[in-house]
C-alpha cells in the first residue's frame, strides 16, 4: 500500500472523523441538565468575582472601573445585550451607530454599577434552582440577604444565554420580577420613538447621561 494511502487511512481519516464528531457534538443541543449546570456555574463565577472585588474596599475609582469593565466583558454577553436593548431599531442602525452605541452603552453601564457598587456590601447570595427557557436561555434563581437584616431579602433571577457551541454568559438580571434589560430596552425604544425613529438620538442621550455620571 502506498505511503500516502496509509497516511490517509491511518491518520487523516480518523482525524477527520474525530473533528466531525466534535463538530456534531458542538452543534447538537446540549442536554437540559448540562445547560442548567453551566448556567449555575456562570452565575457562581460572577458572584465569586464580585466577592473578590468587595474584599478590596480601598481600591480607587479607576481600579474599580477597570475591574467592573472586565467583569462585564467576561461574564456578560455584551454584544447581544446591546443589540437587545434597542429593540427593533438595532437592525435599522448603521454599523457605525451600532459600534458607537455598544461603546457608550457599556460605559454607562459601568458607571452605573460603579456608583452603586457599595450597596453590595453586607449582602450574601444564596443560589436557587435553574430552569431552562427554550433552547437558548436558562433562568437561575437566587436570593440576596443582608447580613445585618436592615434590608429585606431580594429575589433575583439571572437569565443566562446557553447557546450550543458558544460561551455561556449572563444576559439579564431580574430583581423582584423587574427585568433590568427589558426596562432599559423599553426606555431606549421610547427615546428613539420620541425622536422620530432616529437611533442617533439614543446615542446622544446616553452620551449626555455619561457626562453627568
Amino acid at each position: 500500500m502506498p505511503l500516502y494511502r496509509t497516511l490517509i487511512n491511518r491518520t487523516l481519516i480518523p482525524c477527520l472523523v474525530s473533528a466531525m464528531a466534535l463538530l456534531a457534538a458542538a452543534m447538537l443541543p446540549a442536554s437540559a441538565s448540562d445547560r442548567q449546570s453551566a448556567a449555575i456555574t456562570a452565575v457562581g463565577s460572577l458572584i465569586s468575582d464580585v466577592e473578590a472585588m468587595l474584599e478590596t474596599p480601598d481600591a480607587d475609582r479607576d481600579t474599580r472601573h477597570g475591574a467592573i469593565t472586565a467583569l462585564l466583558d467576561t461574564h456578560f454577553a455584551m454584544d447581544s445585550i446591546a443589540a437587545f436593548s434597542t429593540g427593533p431599531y438595532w437592525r435599522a442602525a448603521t454599523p457605525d451607530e451600532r459600534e458607537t452605541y455598544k461603546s457608550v452603552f457599556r460605559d454607562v453601564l459601568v458607571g452605573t454599577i460603579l456608583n452603586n457598587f457599595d450597596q453590595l456590601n453586607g449582602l450574601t447570595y444564596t443560589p436557587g434552582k435553574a430552569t431552562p427557557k427554550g433552547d437558548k436561555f436558562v433562568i437561575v434563581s437566587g436570593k440576596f440577604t443582608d447580613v445585618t437584616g436592615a434590608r429585606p431579602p431580594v429575589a433575583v433571577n439571572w437569565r443566562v444565554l446557553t447557546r450550543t457551541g458558544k460561551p455561556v454568559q449572563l444576559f439579564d438580571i431580574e430583581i423582584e420580577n423587574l427585568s433590568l434589560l427589558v426596562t432599559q430596552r423599553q426606555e431606549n425604544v421610547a427615546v428613539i420613538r420620541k425622536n422620530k425613529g432616529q437611533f442617533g438620538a439614543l446615542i446622544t442621550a446616553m452620551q449626555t447621561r455619561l457626562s453627568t455620571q
Partner: protein
Amino acid sequence: MHTGFMTGRQGADTITGTGGQRQTPPKIMVSKLILVGLAGLLAACSTTPPDERSDSRDVFENTNRSIYAFNMAADTYVLEPVADGYRSTIPEGGQQAVNYHLRWASMPSTAINSTLQGKFENAGLATLNFLVNGLTLGFADLTQDHDTIEQEDFGQTLASYNAPEGPYIMVPILGPRTGRALTGNIVDFAMNPLRVFGSGDEVQTVRQAQAPLGAVSFRAKNFDAFNDVKYNALDPYARTRSAYYQIRLGLLEDRVGGTSPTSEDAFEFLFED
C-alpha cells in the same frame, strides 16, 4: 343645606330608618365622586396618535406625561423631603409598625379577592391575620405570617376573570395604573376595614392618615430606587411605565420571587437571523 360633601360619620347620620327618605350612603357617594372624577380625567385625556406613542399601550401618552411631570414636581417639593425625613427620623420599629398596619388594612380586600380567585387558603390566612392583628389595629404583627399571605387586590380578581386591561393611565398623585387596576383600587378602597367597621375619633384619624402615610412609607421604602429613576433615567416616564407593567404582570401571574415574568417572545428576535 347640604354642601355636597360629607364626612363618613355625618353621612351615616343622614340615613333614616324604613319609612323615611333614604339617602345615599357616604361610601357609595365617595366612590361615585371618584368615578365621576376619573371619568372627567379620562375625558380630558386626548388620545395620542399611534405614530407619536413611545409604547403602543400608552394611548394617552401626551396627557400622561404632563400628569407625570406634575407628580414629579409634587414629589420633589413634598413627598421626597417628607419621605427622607421619615426614614431618617422614625425609628426602624415605628416604620415597621406602619408597614404592618398598612398591610393589615389590606387584609379584608385580600381575603375577599382571594376567595373570588379561588385561593381559599390565602383567604383563610388573611382573615385570621385580620382578626388577630385587629387587636392592635394592625400596628403589631401577632401572627408572624407576613411571608405566607399574598396580597390580592380587585384588579387581580378582574384579571383572573379575563377583564380587559384597559389603557395606561397616569393618575395625579397616585401614579401609574392600568384602567383595570384603577377600577380595582376603587373597590379595594371601599373594603378598608376602618371605613367599614371603624368608629370613634381615633379610628377616623388613623383612617384619614392611611393614604398619606402609605404614600410616604412607600416612597421611603423605595427611596434610592425611586430617585435613581427620577434623576438618572434617560426617560424617567418610560422607565416608570416599563417597571409598572412588569411588576403588575408578576403580581397577576403570582410570580413574586418566582421565575421570569418576561415574555420569552421578547428575547427571540435577536436570534431570528
